[in-house]
């Protein structure tokens, strides 16, 4: 019977074309507005690594000066000093550990006339790749031993490899980088997580736009004094020279621990607490602040990855969808009210109220389906327009399968919700009265 009601609903779309058109249009616009803003929000707040997000942790230890410290405030910066990062790398717990620093270099091409290619990327350790499930197209990450020996090795992104080597396999070839010869050991597959959670405090594109194109060992970057392309906070004195900088309390390194499971969070917390206790012997960590741990989602929350703009527009778009719903209720009332005669006949012929209810609600859902289809088109158009506005939106404005399904669910659900009141009213028709007046 439901199938029959569905066909009836489709046919009834053509009845009162103006009213139906208005209804479908209202739903379309409402759904498109909320879906396009929701897509942006969804991309901003999505979990980039759902399988592991609860057991990857960022540690924060507060090495700020005691001057001006108010107990209970958050650590003065969201990055670590070189001293803490290298101590964590050497002695920290967990399955894997990695330090991440942004570097900007330029690749000098073999032929001078090709010019230099600017390359943004990361200085990190070999653990980075398995830790974040980074896929390789060719070759592999450098060996842990090469972390220690500060080898001149580099992993390229696919796009950088194609830019410099074309379709050739670059593994084993050498490039000029930071005034040194670097051996290419691997090329990544298509990989650019959204948001770029592994290195959110970066200097090349922000949380969404941009891509890391070169990856070199962390200790190699230290040896070559590449510095950082991201931010650096120095809240204390430092001795002159590079060693002085490394020994200072300047914070400029992001750090990640991978634990076996989310439960081991307390193990990690204990380690951090005993670490800072130990370091106080060297008169460090004078603030005695709490040591913080953030898993992936907490970390993105801490750094306000979801912008206020994204939230505002989503709320307002949903306010708009509400309005469209109310409008649809009114229009459906109008549409159904002229069909009292039809209801009277059906009821007189033995249809129960429940049957009438089903029929009209199905009809409302059909309107929603039409609205969903058109809404999908419209939101694709809206997202396309948004993507042309800025690099950030270009990275964000992509509809995925879940959003596609949500569009239909939202359209049909809203039309059903809107249809409830008009349908209930249609069910109240008294057959005898209707038949008499005809």
């Amino acid at each position: 019977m439901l199938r029959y009601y569905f066909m009836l609903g489709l046919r009834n779309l053509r009845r009162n074309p103006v009213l139906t058109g208005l209804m479908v249009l209202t739903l379309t616009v409402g759904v498109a507005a909320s879906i396009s803003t929701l897509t942006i929000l969804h991309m901003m707040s999505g979990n980039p690594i759902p399988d592991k997000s609860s057991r990857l942790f960022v540690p924060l230890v507060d090495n700020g000066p005691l001057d001006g410290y108010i107990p209970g405030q958050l650590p003065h910066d969201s990055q670590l000093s070189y001293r803490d990062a290298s101590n964590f790398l050497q002695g920290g717990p967990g399955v894997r550990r990695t330090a991440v620093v942004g570097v900007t270099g330029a690749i000098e091409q073999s032929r001078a006339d090709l010019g230099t290619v600017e390359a943004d990327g990361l200085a990190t350790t070999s653990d980075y790749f398995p830790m974040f499930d980074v896929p390789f197209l060719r070759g592999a990450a450098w060996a842990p031993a090469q972390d220690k020996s500060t080898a001149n090795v580099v992993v390229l992104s696919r796009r950088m490899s194609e830019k410099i080597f074309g379709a050739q396999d670059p593994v084993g070839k050498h490039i000029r980088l930071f005034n040194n010869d670097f051996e290419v050991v691997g090329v990544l597959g298509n990989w650019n997580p959204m948001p770029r959670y592994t290195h959110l405090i970066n200097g090349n594109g922000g949380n969404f736009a941009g891509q890391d194109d070169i990856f070199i060992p962390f200790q190699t970057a230290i040896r070559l004094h590449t510095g950082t392309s991201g931010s650096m906070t120095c809240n204390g004195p430092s001795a002159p020279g590079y060693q002085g900088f490394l020994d200072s309390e300047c914070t400029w390194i992001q750090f990640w621990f991978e634990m076996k499971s989310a439960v081991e969070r307390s193990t990690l917390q204990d380690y951090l607490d005993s670490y800072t206790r130990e370091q106080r012997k060297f008169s460090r960590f004078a603030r005695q602040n709490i040591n913080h741990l953030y898993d992936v989602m907490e970390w993105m929350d801490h750094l306000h990855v979801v912008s206020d703009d994204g939230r505002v527009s989503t709320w307002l778009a949903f306010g708009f969808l509400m309005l469209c719903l109310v409008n649809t209720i009114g229009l459906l009332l109008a549409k159904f009210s002229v069909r009292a005669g039809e209801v009277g006949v059906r009821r007189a012929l033995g249809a129960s109220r429940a049957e009438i209810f089903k029929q009209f609600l199905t009809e409302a859902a059909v309107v929603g389906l039409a609205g969903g289809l058109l809404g999908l088109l419209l939101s694709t158009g809206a997202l396309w327009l948004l993507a042309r506005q800025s690099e950030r939106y270009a990275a964000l404005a992509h509809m995925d399968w879940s959003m596609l399904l949500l569009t239909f669910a939202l359209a049909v659900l809203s039309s059903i919700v809107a249809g409830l009141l008009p349908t209930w009213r249609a069910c109240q028709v008294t057959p005898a009265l209707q038949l008499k007046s005809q």
Partner: protein
Amino acid sequence: MEIRPILSILLRNKIAPLLVALQVAISLAVLTNALYIVTLRYEAANRPSGVADESAMFMIHLSPVTKPAFADIMAQQQRDRETLAALPGVASVAWVNQMAMSQSGWNTVVATERTQPQPTAPAAQYLSSDSLVKTLGLELVEGRDFNAEDIEEVDMDQADPKMKQVIVTQALAQALYPGAASVVGRKMFFGTGADADESQIVGVVRRLQTPGAATGKRGEYSVIVPVRTSIPAAQFVVRADPAQRDRIMRDAETALRKITPYPVIVKVKSLDAIRADRYRDDRTLAWMLVAVSALLLLVTASGIVGMTMLWISQRRKQIGVRRALGARRVDILRYFITENLLITTGGIVAGLILAVGLNQFLVAQLEMSKMPIGYLAAGSGLLWLLGVFAVFGPARRASAISPAIATRAA
């Protein structure tokens, strides 16, 4: 006079008028808040940066592929500077470490006294070996500009600059010495504690936005220090003839590439482009909100038209009877318009409450100020007009119903 019968009819048939009123209420709430956000963004994007005649300015940034020795960079900087200044159409050149609105730069904290527990304010730290007052066209409201003797040349890998003299913006001067008529000659510290560098304020400029250009006073907390160093290798701000700016930008890039003896990455960007990039996302949001607001009004209007048409078709007989009993066409027209005004007014009253509630929610969630009453008044007026406008067409058709309808059987 006519209101009582209209009200009693409305009360007897509650659902439809309630729906229209609800639409008006939601529209008003969303519309006023959306337009308020748009205005805030628009105002923020149009704040003056302090730079005179922005369309004449561009930045040129050179980063060597590998870091040359300090002396080499400093010598090259001088050559670059001279080359740029000699280009036809260039009015003024300054070496500088950052630019207003460029979204990336040096931040520091400043304090009035060394002994303060907390620094007074964050500040953007401009380093320049030339006169930013002259090149950027800053307005000097007190004190003097730097002269050649003030300039300090420092290799920051070896030592920190002493920064004995500074020029601050008026906003920062007020933060350091609230209410002071004059701050020239007064002290200022970079940070707090024993290690904080002490400086003397030699000049005050009316305005110079920070690279972040945050909203509010903070966006103008800038301090200029007469220092030349090797980090970043070379960044120049150039004032050129606005009519030829784009050509001069290309010339400048070519000229600097030619005279740099080591491989270098050159980036050239006009201040107009820097400003556009800084406010790009604000503009996108504003457009999105304007589009949603327009659609909102359209949907509300179509809702009113639809509902009025439905009532009229339901009340054809009633209208016929009234006409037959002597009501003029204008009376019918007035009836529907009055009815609509009653409904819209009800909606607007509810909408005002909803709008204030939504605004308070937004204020609580985001860094946003409260919406002024003017928006509510304007929004209400707009929706009243929209209501009358939307109902006018259907009401006219209603007034055209013939009195003869009354004589026909239902």
